């Protein structure tokens, strides 16, 4: 076997031992029973808010073929609980802690980021796919202007690396990514869940208490992969890919499209050790393909003039 593969990546100055981390809302202390937390690229917490929130009415999830629709909402016990009860769980590990935050106003985002710029927190991930009460409840990340505004205020409020997590539900994700970059984001996470719905045919009622919810899992991978590809061409800051990643092959596909790192969400619900399996298999992939640094994959998709239809495609040796 050839030399070791260097799996480390750098996301806007923050060095990760490998490019694999959990997606917000699909990770908590419980996974410590399943995997060694010192193997992850980073920790990413469930989104927290300043106010205490109960989350959405039940049912909160419904499954579809190859996918999950969730409307958990953001149950949150607030900042003091997070600092006193949640953070200590992650303190023993040598893995950067990324805190996902949300707020109903740009100012709220900024003050929350400021309050959380404390030792033990390695980066802030701003989940701006949440409703912006100053814009009729439309999510910040739906438009470039509101994204630029909230990112600018966040940037002024914290010196921590700032990741901005975008929504896939807008018509122009790359433009929104550019706005985040212009306002000082260190990275963009592409993307959150895709707004969806399911109706129960027995009761004729929506399957989710919240009526609509966010689609995740393998079904959304081709869509989000396209958005990562578009964003990576649009911005110079790192793009973190997130959507339907279950295997190292999925992670490689995202990195080739331009992702500098990946987040794994729903896959963990099916295979709790999905992240460590992906890390192992990513190393194997690189070794087999004689890629010595995983960063060589980033943006490595080969775009050529399309081949003409060729009978030779069918039997390469003939």
């Amino acid at each position: 076997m050839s030399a070791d593969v260097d799996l480390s990546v750098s996301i806007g100055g923050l060095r990760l031992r490998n490019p694999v981390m959990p997606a917000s809302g699909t990770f908590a202390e419980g996974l410590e029973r399943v995997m060694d937390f010192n193997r992850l690229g980073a920790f990413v917490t469930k989104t927290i808010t300043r106010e205490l929130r109960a989350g959405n009415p039940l049912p909160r999830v419904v499954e579809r073929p190859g996918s999950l629709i969730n409307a958990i909402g953001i149950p949150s016990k607030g900042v003091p609980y997070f600092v006193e009860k949640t953070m200590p769980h992650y303190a023993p590990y040598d893995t950067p802690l990324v805190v996902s935050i949300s707020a109903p106003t740009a100012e709220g985002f900024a003050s929350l980021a400021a309050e959380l710029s404390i030792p033990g927190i390695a980066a802030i991930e701003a989940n701006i796919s949440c409703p912006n009460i100053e814009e009729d409840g439309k999510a910040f990340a739906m438009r470039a202007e509101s994204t630029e505004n909230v990112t600018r205020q966040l940037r002024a409020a914290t010196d921590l690396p700032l990741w901005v997590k975008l929504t896939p539900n807008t018509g122009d994700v790359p433009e929104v990514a550019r706005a985040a970059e212009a306002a000082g984001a260190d990275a963009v996470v592409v993307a959150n869940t895709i707004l969806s719905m399911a109706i129960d045919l027995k009761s004729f009622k929506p399957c989710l208490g919240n009526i609509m919810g966010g689609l995740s899992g393998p079904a959304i991978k081709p869509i989000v992969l396209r958005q990562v590809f578009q964003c990576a061409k649009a911005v110079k800051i790192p793009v973190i890919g997130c959507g339907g990643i279950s295997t190292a092959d999925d992670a490689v596909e995202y990195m080739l499209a331009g992702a500098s790192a990946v987040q794994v969400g729903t896959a963990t619900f099916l295979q709790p050790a999905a992240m460590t399996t992906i890390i192992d298999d990513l190393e194997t992939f690189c070794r087999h393909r004689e890629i010595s640094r995983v960063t060589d994959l980033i943006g490595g998709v080969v775009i050529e003039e399309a081949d003409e239809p060729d009978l030779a495609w069918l039997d390469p040796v003939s």
Partner: protein
Amino acid sequence: MSIHLDHAGIAAIPVGGAEAAASCTPWKASVVAELAEVVSHEAVNSEYRHLVLGCGPEAAAALPGQFFQLLCPHPLGEQPFLRRPMSLYGADPDRRQVEFLYKVTGAGTRGLDTLKIGDRLDIMGPLGTGFTLDPAWRNIVVVARGAGLATLAPLARAAKANGTHITAVLSARRPDLLVSVELFQSQGADVVAVTDAEASSGPANVERILRRLIADGRCDAFFTCGSSRLMRVQQRLAREFGLPGQVAMEQQMACGIGLCYCCVRDFNVDGEIVSRRVCWDGPVFDLMEALP
């Protein structure tokens, strides 16, 4: 509210990361996902199936009230995506086996129903916190219906080992749908069967039965699962007579290990309503804190 983790001395192999984990840190998994092998799989009646699996040491060490998340095979034309939670019905650390008793209901359990001896099933567990048996208890009462008949069954053996006598009030729609009766009896429990068909399963009659047991000094604690109406009866009696109790709750789950907050229920903790994750803070809860 959170459960502290105990890694000490539990030898386990995590899915996927075995080598790497073992070689660089002393960390060990206590919850594993593994491909267990079907040892036997039988219809108990028209609705319930009894599934016995060969598994690793972690799974076989599961305790009464804990549960597993099963990655069900796809039955024809259906694609259950999520794992399905299933209570431990029996565990044998020596023979490295776990057992489940399930009712064929929807896509997931229809998928389970296709399993043949020798097939593999991806099981993840053991999960959650189970029942607690106070060594001081001489007599406990178990009240079960529906999936509760499976969930409470492993208590029979544990109670016997604890020197505690069980009276099991087992409820079903019809006598032929009652399961676990022999299991309880084989461990020396008294079984009181009540059914809708015989009009004996109503809350009023069950209350009569329970009051008699309390009066006879045969109820130091309640254990229940599977019926909110019967749970309310026990809560009333527990309050009236100052008895402790434990209830195993069900809720739809996605992750089964505390990550997703889809399985929350409200609980009444000293008058305050708190939301808890059934998979992580339970599935066994204090009877008096449970809300129907």
